């Protein structure tokens, strides 16, 4: 079975797995990271989103063999060493922008990716950036507020 050396949340991880294993399963099943969640396995819902070199990417159809040297960040990797939340995480808590929270990982990661490129997005830009992320509880309006709160604090 092939071995991969992955750059996950700032540290090198050695993974032995089949080459077609999607990154999502490497993160959850091998590295026991719970940030990215399984929602569809079809890159349709965004709940498995991670940052690949700072850019939001769904991980459920991304084969481990395609990752190479890329820097992968999950929601766990946003928390600082002393346990402090990233301003985007903080904003989601402040706005109570969740019900069940299953989609929250994707929302947080897509927000960071957006704010990396556009530090003060308007409503339309926020909606556009989150278009690939589904939420079934209907927390959308709180999520939009959280993105704005985060933009102000960054």
């Amino acid at each position, binding site marked *: *079975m092939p071995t991969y050396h992955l750059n996950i949340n700032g540290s090198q991880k050695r993974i032995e*797995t*089949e080459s*077609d*294993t*999607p990154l999502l*399963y490497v993160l*959850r*099943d*091998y590295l*026991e*990271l*719970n*940030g990215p*969640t*399984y*929602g*569809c*396995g*079809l890159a*349709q*819902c965004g*709940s498995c989103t991670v940052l690949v070199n700072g850019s939001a990417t769904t991980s459920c159809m991304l084969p481990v063999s395609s990752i190479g040297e890329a820097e992968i960040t*999950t*929601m*766990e990797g946003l*928390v600082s060493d002393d346990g402090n*939340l990233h301003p985007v*995480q903080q904003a*989601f*808590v402040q706005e*109570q*922008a*969740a*019900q*069940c*929270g*299953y*989609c*929250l*990982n994707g929302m*947080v990661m897509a927000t960071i990716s957006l704010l990396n490129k556009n530090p003060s997005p308007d409503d339309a830009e*926020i*909606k*556009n950036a*989150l*278009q690939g*992320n*589904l*939420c*079934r*509880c*209907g*927390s*959308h*309006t*709180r999520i*939009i507020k959280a993105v704005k709160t985060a933009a102000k604090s960054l």
Partner: protein
Amino acid sequence: MTALPLQSRRKFIKNMGYISVGFSLLGACIGAEDPTIASRVTYDGKLPGSIGRTNTVNAWLEILEDGRIRVLSGKVELGQGIRTAIQQVAAEELDMDLNKVQVHLAETGLTPNEGYTGASASIQYSAMSVRFAAATARQELLELARKKLNTPIADLLLFNGVVKSKLSNKSLTFAEILEGEQIKREVSIPVPIKNKAEHRYVGKAIPRTDIGEMVRGQGGYIQDLRFPGMVHARVVRPPGYESKLITLDGNGLKAEVPGVIKTVIKGSFVGVITEREHQAIKAEQYLKNHSEWTTSTPFPEPKNLFTHIKGISDDPETIRNEGNVELAIKDVKTIKARYTKPYIKHASLGPACGLAMFDGEVLHIWSHSQGIYPLREALAAMLSMEADKIHIIAVPGAGCFGHSTADDAATDAALMALEHPNIHVRVQWSRHDEHAWDPYGPAMIAELEASLDENNRINYWKAEVWTDSHSQRPNKDAGTVLAARHLETPFEMNSRGYLGGGHRNADPYYNIPNMKVNAHYYKGPFRVSSLRSLGSFTNIFAIESFMDALAEKAGQDPLDFRLNHLEDERAVAVIQKVKELTASQNIADDQGVGYAFMRYKNTDAYIAMAAKVAVNKVMGNIELIKMWAAVDVGEVINMDGITNQVEGGMIQAASWTLKEQVTFNTKEITSTDWLKYPILRFSQIPEVEVAIINRPEEDAKGVGEVPMPPTAAAIANAIFKACGKRVNDLPITPEKILNA
């Protein structure tokens, strides 16, 4: 993370052991001023049903050695925030800090049996049971402390886990008072409860602490549970509801897919266990490609669905008959309309997951089921096991909005764990199976007719409603869990479930002298069960669309027309509130504002709603701009919890209204992913605004289902105002607007 089953209550008490009695002066109290304790009032009304079944304090609340209390509720957290609401109520009655109250949700053998988490009933049953149990605990603690401290109750202060004598300055912790025992006193009326005017948590917008955990990836979902040696499994579902396995050739499986441990075949139930999760997905696919199945009964042609439903319905049951509709119908001009709603899905964002481990004697199960005790009955019947040999722990899952597939995943895990003992087996459902095997919210038809008298008041109202069952939740009928239907000796469902849900809110809350409502039950082609608000969604869509049509005929403002048919001042107040919220709206030529009203179940919460839309008359495109709701649930427990539920409910119901329907052909269900079953995405999300009328003197009612029913009518009425087109068949699409 490794999760272990919580110890049983019996063990907990034993471990706690004997705590010596002594007078401890709490360091924190020295020099600190005594808190002002809120006054109490005597409650001698009805106790909630849940208390009736489990009526001792210790069934609901335990004192922990470390100064905290642990509340036991039979309900499940599904994102609705019930954990926080229960915490608020307990902390309030015992004058404790919120963080000293731990809430343990449903687990068989440990928490009370509160049936299912549903019907917007968790606040009025579970949280209210906790209120009276905590108030009773307070009484007992004061009486015991009076003896131990040898001072009258009037001298005692109970706060934050201690009871203190003002005269002697001596204090005892709850654990010291109880000497290792728990409070076995019965909860009965009269019981002194805190004066609501002096509440410090209840009625406030207390933030949920679990969101802080979720953003760290520590949401604690069922999907996140891991145990040493845990294995992964998937089920190869048949191609149709009734398909039977003919052949399965698994000979090449191990050569093709690494990590395969075992294939479990029981009749037409086929499961596969692997070391890693992705291996299970590949193994499932392999077995699907190497199996043959019989075909299932064809589905009706989609275009004939509603004709088909009428053709298979039972004789109607009259569920309300007042005045004399038959007489009133004679010689008057009536208005008639027909409304339909297709099958729709729960469409949880997280497909079902279940874990099980059989230790040789007890079958342990972890599930995001909404009813662990009823699930235990179904599994006991399916497996011919004693119920007390099945231990089920509720674990939070993604929001599921009714009876979805959680129980089925738990059943799958149970079947496989029995074949692979002493190892935790985790079953994860695929998106395809979640969409295809979900018990849908049933398709419905409502045919309404009414007439107006010379004063433009409704003289008679007649409603005919066609509905399938609205609950086939697990119970002692093993056929309620999916896999039971596929075993060697299959269990068919013997019962029809809860038919009454279909005519929930079918009888208008308005004052109408002659009214008749008939329900026609059918057993349709698709698997169905409870979906948020049951039949109310269709019935209120029909009633409130029809009220606007009647107002139009009467030449009246739609809200005034409704107010002319209402006396209940709480109903009037929510309507006035929503009118006020929308009063300053500028409405462009292509825009419209529509309204709807409901009292949920005609006995519970009140809601009035407004929607503002713009409609492109050439393309039929609908832009949902904003939605408003004015809500009265009686006593508010958590202001933000209610706001969150109503905001989210409006958006979810807007998605049902504008986007959603199960699609199929005669052979199969075709809406099996998010492209084929689209739901509202960010670009179509409206603004939302919620106003809450708090009535602490009234009973606290649930809110989870309340925003759903009026949403569709508010949108349909807004579309009519915007473009003059009335669409009575959900979902409301651009094509239907152009063809109306």
